[in-house]
């Protein structure tokens, strides 16, 4: 069995497990189409790293929270500096911030910081947090020229004004100019599947991940996602690294489960993704990932730090689920056809409506692929006082 056959077989097996894991009522009412065969092709000959997913601290998630971290929608630079330092030391057990960062990066690394600017300006990876991450990476001895802040769409980076707000010397890269535009992708590293009969069945990995950076620090935001349930560490990596991923959705159905997890297994993305810092300064509990409606955005002042994206996203999922419960909104797991709308305005202004049958099960599916711990009881969730 060659690697291609093996991966294909493995994926089909995983996908079958996922379908079986859904509630029977869900299957009956929503008639989610079956997961098609999915082929994954990693970078040939790439040697996996022990720092790769789930990383040095499987199952551990450090949560720090301070209401002063965000006041009147402005993120406080000094407060997030303190929170990040505190969280990094707690995650690693090191006595200093510099020692904590040195667990993940070396002076010779080319460090990619994967931001999430979709949803800007209302909710995106805060430039204030990115500045502190840059400072942490530089404390290890990585020069500014070897730090790259990147995402797929340069126009979303522009909306966030990252180019003006980050320190001089670092590179800021948008892989693609716009939604339909081309970009820099590796033709030999891809995910191949036909979900809805689309003519282009491949999603390719970005060159910046395959060839340029040696380490990735992933900075997702804390958001509801109309298709995947939440968008967190896993989705920020997967759908921010591969192109042509919108084809996995056709309302009201989506194959984010299992595609998100599967994409995260592809090398070298898996090995290079060494640390995840979730920006929960703002918490979008409905309308994600693009909403600009402030009614659904809480200013929570939370930061999560982990090497295990599955554990991190599990904690995130619980937080968003609880927030929705508190607000009287339906569960992210709800699969009621009556909640589905094709009217995006209705979706953006009514928390009981959605465009897709959400698939928060993508997180547990990623756990079953060995990317981390999805069982809350097994997650070492450390909450630190401000």
């Amino acid at each position, binding site marked *: 069995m060659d690697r291609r056959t093996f991966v294909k077989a493995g994926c089909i097996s995983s996908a079958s497990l996922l379908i079986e894991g859904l509630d029977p009522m869900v299957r009956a009412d929503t008639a989610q189409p079956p997961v098609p065969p999915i082929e994954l092709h990693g970078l040939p000959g790439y040697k996996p790293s022990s720092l790769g997913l789930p990383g040095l601290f499987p199952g551990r998630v450090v949560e720090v929270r301070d209401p002063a971290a965000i006041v009147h*929608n*402005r993120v406080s630079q000094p407060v997030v500096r303190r929170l990040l330092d505190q969280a990094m030391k707690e995650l690693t057990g090191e006595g200093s911030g510099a020692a904590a960062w040195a667990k993940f990066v070396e002076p010779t690394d080319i460090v990619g910081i994967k931001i999430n600017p979709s949803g800007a*300006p*209302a909710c995106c990876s805060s*430039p204030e947090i990115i500045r502190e991450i840059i400072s942490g990476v530089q404390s290890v001895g990585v020069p500014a020229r070897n730090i790259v802040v990147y995402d797929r769409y340069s*126009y979303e980076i*522009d*909306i966030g*004004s990252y*180019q*003006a*707000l*980050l*320190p*001089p*010397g670092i590179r800021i890269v948008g892989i693609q*100019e*716009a939604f339909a*535009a081309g970009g820099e992708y590796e033709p030999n590293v891809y995910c191949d599947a036909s979900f809805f009969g689309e003519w282009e069945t491949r999603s390719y990995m970005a060159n910046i991940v395959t060839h340029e950076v040696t380490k990735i620090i992933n900075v997702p935001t804390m958001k509801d996602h109309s298709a995947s349930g939440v968008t967190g560490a896993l989705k920020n990596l997967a759908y921010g690294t591969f192109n042509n991923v919108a084809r996995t959705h056709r309302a009201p159905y989506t194959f984010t489960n299992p595609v998100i997890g599967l994409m995260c297994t592809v090398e070298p993305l898996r090995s290079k993704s060494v640390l995840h810092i979730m920006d929960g300064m703002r918490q979008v509990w409905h309308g994600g990932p693009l909403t*600009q409606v*402030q009614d659904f955005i809480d200013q929570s002042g939370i930061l999560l730090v982990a090497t295990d994206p599955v554990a991190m996203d599990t904690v995130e999922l619980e937080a968003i689920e609880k927030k929705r419960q508190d607000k009287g909104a339906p569960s992210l797991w709800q699969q009621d056809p009556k909640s589905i709308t094709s009217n995006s305005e209705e979706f953006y202004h009514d928390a009981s409506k959605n465009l897709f049958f959400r698939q928060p099960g993508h997180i547990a599916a990623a756990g079953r692929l060995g990317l981390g711990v999805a069982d809350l009881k097994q997650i070492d969730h450390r909450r630190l006082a401000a």
Partner: protein
Amino acid sequence: MKKETAQRPHSADWPTLLKDNARSGGQAQRAVHAPERALWQYRAGGSARSSPILFEGILFVTSVNGMLHAIDAATGLAKWKFRADAQVHSTPSLSADRVLFGCDDGKVYAVDRHAGMKVWETSAGAEVWASPVSCNGVVFFGSADAKVYAVDAASGRARWVRELGGRIYSTIYATEQHLYVGCGDARVYCLEAASGKVVWSTPTGNGIDSSPAVAGGLVLIGSEDFFFYAMDANTGEVRWKYETGLGIASSPAVSGDLTIVGSKDGFLYALETQTGHLRWKAAAGELVTAPAVIGEGIVCIQSGGTLAFDLATGKLVWRAALGGSLQSVPVLAGDTIYLASLGGEIYALQ
């Protein structure tokens, strides 16, 4: 202030960002009516993230794929194209017979406006997204390397370089004596035009992506700290500031006693220039990062499409579903509006 363009200015000419060094595209009263038809459409072959300029019937526009296009404004046909070595986000600017623009590899090019041939190039240490500004034979521009450069307009040779505290994406406002610019280090700077010496700098609460206007002795500029500032042009003292709902990357338009600025919160704000009092506030529908321009009784902005609001009341007058750019400024020339879009189409609307 001395205009740098050597040619006799024509009323329709628009040779630099917001028409001229005084940014009068944001301060003049020009007749603009709701567009009824597209005169022509030009495909730039790459996303346009900058604003077109217009001079003697030729529209100059850059596209991100490294091209500077010279387009016949009457027909929409290419006169010539010039290819730079890297991506281009900079709005071009005219200096004598040269079209100037910055590039993502740090180069600033001067290209002959008739032949499309390079006259000179100079290099900064990082990308130049701001539009070069030409005044008194000197070209000024800021770069992401945190430096402001002054080079000779004829040769491109360096006059001086001044390092500031952060990345510079703000286009400099130049007068004979002084330069005003916003910076990523959260400060607004006033520099001596002759030497680059810092005359004053005033802090805001976050980095600055917006380009300033100067009117009534005030430097008017927005910050990512959500505030719009009016600073004394001589001292930098904050005379007033107005809080919007999110960061401000848009540059202001000034007309009479009114300053119009857009915010990422999706609103246009009309503020009294001398006091900062709100005259009106209008929803643009989407976030606003592009600068506004003022026509006869209206203010125009690109936000999703191209929108025109009544200058006195803020009421939406018309909307054209074209030119949904994030940064580009429409050029208002007589009865024609020229637009560049994110998708790379350039339109002439009548």
